[in-house]
């Protein structure tokens, strides 16, 4: 896998280090003693049933949720120390569709980390390049409220990639996106990864996507049920342990 000069040679420091993380809400255990190291340049898919703690794990990595036990480090640093090295694509349901904003403004937040009152020419050029890269160049001036699910996802991806992050974290990026847009999304991620040597972490329900696009898979249902190469981890035994039945294993074996 090619790594560009900006990101430098592969480091011995893991891109993501999760160390004995446990998190509870009241009586409910969300994550229990979750540990793994993800090397730089890998493409990790986090899979598991609904309520398995997949999104919570990403939020712990980003510093959005504080675990009761354990910790997570990004490139050896606690979350939030160097947010510019991280590009985050949240679930689409978190944002307010009535907010008066254009796709270009959304992408610029990835550069500024604040909302732009006035768009500078250099920022506009960078935002448009990022939007073009994800096949959404024509959307720059379009209000966010008028974008489809797939178009919005592209705008969010452009926002995450405009800062050229070394780690891209995506929380169920294919939710609400049609089949073609979903495959475009995976192709874009792989292309970005090949170009820059970046690390990608993606929460997904799609075991086929995990099987065919990820280099590493974490099977989780509150605790880790498997971690490693997809052909090893996406086995009937691991999936049955995590999902409680064999249906999912059959779904990706065809």
């Amino acid at each position: 896998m090619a790594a560009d000069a900006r990101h430098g040679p592969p480091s011995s420091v893991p891109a993501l280090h999760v160390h004995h993380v446990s998190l509870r809400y009241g009586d409910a255990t969300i994550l229990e003693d979750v540990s793994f190291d993800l090397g730089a340049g890998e493409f990790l898919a986090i899979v598991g049933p609904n309520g398995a703690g997949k999104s919570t794990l990403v939020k712990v990595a980003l510093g959005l949720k504080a675990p009761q036990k354990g910790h997570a480090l990004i490139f050896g640093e606690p979350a939030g120390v160097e947010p510019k090295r991280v590009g985050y694509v949240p679930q689409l349901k978190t944002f307010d569709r009535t907010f008066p904003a254009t796709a270009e403004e959304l992408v610029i937040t990835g550069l500024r980390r604040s909302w732009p009152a006035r768009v500078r020419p250099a920022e506009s050029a960078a935002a448009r390049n990022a939007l073009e890269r994800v096949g959404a160049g024509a959307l720059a001036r379009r209000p966010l409220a008028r974008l489809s699910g797939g178009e919005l996802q592209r705008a969010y991806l452009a926002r995450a990639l405009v800062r050229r992050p070394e780690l891209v974290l995506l929380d169920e990026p294919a939710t609400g996106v049609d089949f073609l847009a979903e495959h475009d999304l995976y192709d874009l991620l792989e292309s970005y990864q090949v170009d820059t040597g970046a690390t990608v972490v993606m929460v997904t329900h799609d075991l086929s996507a995990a099987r065919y696009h990820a280099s590493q898979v974490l099977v989780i249902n509150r605790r880790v049920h498997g971690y490693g190469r997809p052909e090893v981890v996406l086995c009937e035994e691991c999936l049955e342990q995590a999902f409680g039945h064999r249906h999912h294993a059959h779904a990706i074996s065809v």
Partner: protein
Amino acid sequence: MSILEALSFPFFQRALVAGLAIAVMAGLLGVFVVQRRLSFLGDGLAHAAFGGMGIGAFVIVSADLVGSRVGFINHPILIALPFSMLAALVIAWLRRGTRLSSDTAIGVSFAVSVALGVLLFSLIPPDANLGVSAMDLLFGSILGVRSSDLWLIVSVAVLASALLLLLWGRLGYATFDDELARADGLNTDRLELVLFLIAAVIIAVSASVVGVILMAAYLVIPAAAARLLARTLAQMTLLAVALGLVSTVAGLAISFYLDVPSGATIVLTQAALFVPAALFGRR
């Protein structure tokens, strides 16, 4: 008498300057209030100011401070201001620290403050000569703005507007998507707390001078109309301020010519600007 002649009267000049100052700070604040779906917050904090003024008035009368010449010591705002800020902190805590939603948290503060204000104002003897009554505070009189009130309003407007402009980008980002902003290292809890405290100061000071109802209108109607017309948050902010300024000037002028209450006319002028925005604005 023409409007130019009316402008030669100091009471009309004070009303105009106070209205314009409130329009600017309420417009800047209202954008975030409307976009965060906190319109009820304006009402809640304005009524908290009413409760605070009730406490202040009661303390001043009980301590026999009426007519004191020591600074603001004879003005109930001295107590209304910290009381409103405390209400803002309680609302912020109820929102973040409990399972209560914003409207419930604000509703609790609203009801308690009004009850407190009504109770305490009822205990003040009618001959106390305080210069502030419960009816004045609820419905206000922008034409009755005193010189000392004007200095207070203009000072608060300058400071609050500067702070809101300074924080505009971060507040905008956190308003758009709290989680995204936090992932980028913004302390959105602290930002919201600062926003609530700024709101408490703006609303308490303005409501104590122009009344609870006019203040709540300034906070919500121009920003809501601007939301319907604007394509971006920056446009919405400029429009909210502009609509507040226009409605102040137009409302005062119309009330002068028709000889009707100024505060109510300003609110109805804002509503007159809102209606076409709702009918013809962006969907």
